[in-house]
């Protein structure tokens, strides 16, 4: 065997390993999507979106309260986490190198690694126990706490990618440090930050554990912030461990709706990001 053929063989082998790894990584995703869609569509109909659950034994009914509930707790979480997360990211990048900045970054990474059930228990003790009942607000708080470190770190990384020439240009025109940040640097990084926020949203929309201790669940339609509220994840969990075949079907449908919501969010963010980038570069 000549040296060249041996090198070509090695190259092909390596490419083969890479392709194989990709396949192994994608197979679970393909299977999950396949089964969620296959099982989910069977129970999916208009009623599922607009009706409330039927009592056990009666067929049909839907998860309207869970869909609204998921959107509400995720929305509340974002409302709380987006400003805090972005401003933390601004702080970490703007004071990069200072001791407090490193501390904040370390804290964010640690918080990111805290198991979600622990965050659920934490919020339970600070927002559920004192008022003696579960609430949508507590659920939003728990999800928000999970979003903050993701948004903060994404924001920091994207802000550091903005060329320092941009900052100098603003300073040379008489901008203060804060003005330069909020009128030039942050807008320049905005498309990427939006993507980061949506990734965070997608991540927490699928959380069950922190909601069990905070928003709990609600069999009735509710939009009250101070009352327990249902969510798709908790509803899927409840239905999936139940002994009823009809509830199992409903659980599959709930999972399908959840996956679709997350997918739609990512798509919307992609679109918004591309729009913004297009506007900046055209």
């Amino acid at each position: 065997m000549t040296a060249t053929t041996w090198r070509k063989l090695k190259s092909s082998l390596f490419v083969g390993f890479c392709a194989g790894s990709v396949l192994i990584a994608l197979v679970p995703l393909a299977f999950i999507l396949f089964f969620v869609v296959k099982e989910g569509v069977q129970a999916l109909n208009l009623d599922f979106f607009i009706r409330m659950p039927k009592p056990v034994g009666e067929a049909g009914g839907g998860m309207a309260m869970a869909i609204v509930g998921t959107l509400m707790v995720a929305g509340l979480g974002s409302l709380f986490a987006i400003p805090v997360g972005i401003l933390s990211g601004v702080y970490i990048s703007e004071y990069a190198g200072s001791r407090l900045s490193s501390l904040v970054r370390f804290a964010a990474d640690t918080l990111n690694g805290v198991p979600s059930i622990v965050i659920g228990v934490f919020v339970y003790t600070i927002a559920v126990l004192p008022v003696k009942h579960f609430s949508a607000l507590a659920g939003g708080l728990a999800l928000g706490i999970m979003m903050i470190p993701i948004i903060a770190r994404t924001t920091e990384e994207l802000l550091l990618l903005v060329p320092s020439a941009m900052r100098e240009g603003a300073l040379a025109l008489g901008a203060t440090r804060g003005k330069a940040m909020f009128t030039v640097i942050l807008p320049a990084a905005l498309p990427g930050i939006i993507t980061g926020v949506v990734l965070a949203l997608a991540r927490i929309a699928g959380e069950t554990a922190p909601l069990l201790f905070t928003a709990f669940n609600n069999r009735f339609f509710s939009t009250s912030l101070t009352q327990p509220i249902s969510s798709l994840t908790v509803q899927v969990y409840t239905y999936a461990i139940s002994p009823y075949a009809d509830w199992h079907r409903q659980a599959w449908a709930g999972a399908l709706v959840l996956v679709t919501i997350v997918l739609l969010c990512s798509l919307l963010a992609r679109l918004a990001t591309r729009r913004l980038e297009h506007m900046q570069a055209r």
Partner: protein
Amino acid sequence: MSADRPLVARPTAVRSDVAPTEREVKIDVAKLNFYYGAKRALEDITVQLHSNLVTACIGPSGCGKSTFLRTLNRMNDVIPGTRVEGRVQVAGRDIYGDGVDVVELRRRVGMVFQKSNPFPKSIFDNVAYGLRLNRMVSSRNELHDRVEASLRSAALWEEVKDRLHDSALALSGGQQQRLCIARALAIQPDVLLMDEPASALDPIATQRIEELIYQLKNDYTIVIVTHNMQQAARVSDVTAFFWLGKLIESDRTDVIFTNPREKLTEDYVTGRFG
């Protein structure tokens, strides 16, 4: 196209009849030392720059000419671990004194950078940025007039007047640099600092910038850092030669290039080192 024929008649021998010293001193630098940490980047710089003249700073890489330029609008302040000694006066005021408003200083001493750095905003918003920031206009009409006037001064208006609201990033490199000049001119500075403004541009775009500098010196005091000695010879009235953080000599540009006092200067401008 023949190579030896210039594309456009260029302003040759941009030299004033008035000797530099007869003009008002705009920038007065005395015993200026500058440190990056422990490293001394500028050593005892003493020089006077006169109003409505173009002063070129030349010298090999790392000689401190850019650092010198950035001490004139305190742009070095943003670099951690730097320190300044000595005195720098702009229009008679000590810019490193107590109670100096750096924001106000930078409004009066504009700067154009080596690499054009338009903001990712529209052409109009780029020029309007400083005007809005410093609250220098009171109406939309006035804002529009000032933006137009600045773009005209930077010889860019005709090329962009139909697409003012397109992104500045869509402009060519040379246009972007003229936009940055327009942006700096909009807030009506006294002094314009230019840090190798044409080093990233092709010869034609470079020539446009040089023509622009020639026109702008009627209204501004200009300090330009350049690596290109032909450029210094073409655009400047006064040339300052820096070497290893020291100002070796500064004089009328024709003197520096034909009959410098120092041997070092002569070696540099004749290309014997550098």
